């Protein structure tokens, strides 16, 4: 029933998207973006899952199996786990950039309301 995980990832993504679209508080928009990021982690790790599988670790494979036998299907997908690892680091770094912008906006405009930050208009 891994499809429940997929749908949960979709739900978290939509929650984040709704926050980004409807909230004008910059911190809440960053939180919405973080939710969207987190949903991709859940999705990618769920896609990597295989029924009755173990973690993709070749340390002491059970029953004297070789790595080639393990690869036939009893482990999770290591490539997708790599994608998730990459996505987490990039997500953290981008959140830091967004928050730095938010702090500077708050200092410059004295508000976190994105509607009031419109000095560049026109």
């Amino acid at each position, binding site marked *: 029933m*891994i*499809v429940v995980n*997929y*749908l949960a*990832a*979709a739900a978290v*993504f*939509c929650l984040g*998207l*709704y926050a980004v*679209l*409807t*909230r*004008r*508080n910059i911190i*809440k928009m960053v939180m919405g973006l973080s939710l969207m990021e987190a949903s991709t982690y859940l*999705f990618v790790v769920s896609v990597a899952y*295989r*029924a009755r*599988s173990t*973690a*993709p*670790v*070749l340390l002491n494979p059970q029953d004297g199996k070789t*790595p*080639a036998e*393990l*690869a*036939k*299907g009893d*482990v999770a*997908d*290591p*490539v*997708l*786990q*790599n994608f998730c*690892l*990459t996505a*987490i*680091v*990039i997500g*953290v*770094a*981008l959140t*830091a*950039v967004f928050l*730095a*912008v938010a*702090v*500077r906006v708050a*200092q*410059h*405009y*004295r*508000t976190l*309301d994105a*509607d*009031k930050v*419109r000095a560049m208009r026109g």
Partner: protein
Amino acid sequence: MARAGVSGVDGRGPEPPEAHPAHRPVVGAVLVAGAAAVLAAAFVAIPREDVPLPAIARQALTASLPRWHLTEPVNAVVYGMRGFDTFGETFLLIAAVVSVVVLTRTREPRRGYIGEEAAAKEEREQIDPSAAPDATQREARSAERVERGEDRPDTPDAVPLGTPAPEDAEGMTVVVRTAMRVVAPVLAVCGVYLVTWGYAPGGGFPAGAVMLGVILLLYAGFGYRRIGLVVRPAPLEVIELVGAAAIVLLMLLGLLLAGSFTANWLPLAPPQTIRSGGTAQVFSVGELVEVGAGLTIAVFALLGIRHDWASDEDEGGTQQ
């Protein structure tokens, strides 16, 4: 949030009409419902947990031990087979850290004469230096004194509630601080363990995050002023760039010695030893330095934003 939401509605008079937010929940809900429908349709149709592993995953699993002597295929993929991808990610991280550093840069010590004195001569002559400071200047100066902590009582407990810049409470209680002194070295060793025993799950990215966690734990316990003396941006920036340079060098040596960028050029030690993995293991250590230093710089750059140049008075005035 409540304040921001209310001010958007209240400011209807002077605000341009676009500020009216009534349509937003409706438009947002429609768009999100559309996105949800597309995602749900796609996610129900994609392969599930009972399909065989894709060819690329089987390739990664079978090549991990013979080609990299790593019993941990995820590390073999991150630092070996998809090393170029991780290489690119490293520089994406550096770009993000540089953005944070540029955005949060505070005043730096003067490095040379740039001629403000001569440039401002005309304006200076128009102002009477003996005139008393007006209300704006008095307010700005008192705000600066507050920020510098000159008007503060000696102990945090004597500071009245609602005082701006709540950086007075220097640290947590002695119990918490002692516990942190005990725990921090253990956690730091765990981080190093994650990266050195690279044939087991771990690697440079989680280890770098653990290192950041140790520093944040100490920050929470001891306060910014004490940790800020140790965690200074200048040496950290050098450490980060040394990590990045080491990674570039490692990859370039692969190009020179083994014929392709990111290729392994170190002799492979037997599996399940610290040096198994060849360049993948060195890459992992480089990422520890890079990620640990980079994230620490980014977080402390955010924590270190203190001086605030805009005055409170022009609230609303900046919108025009």
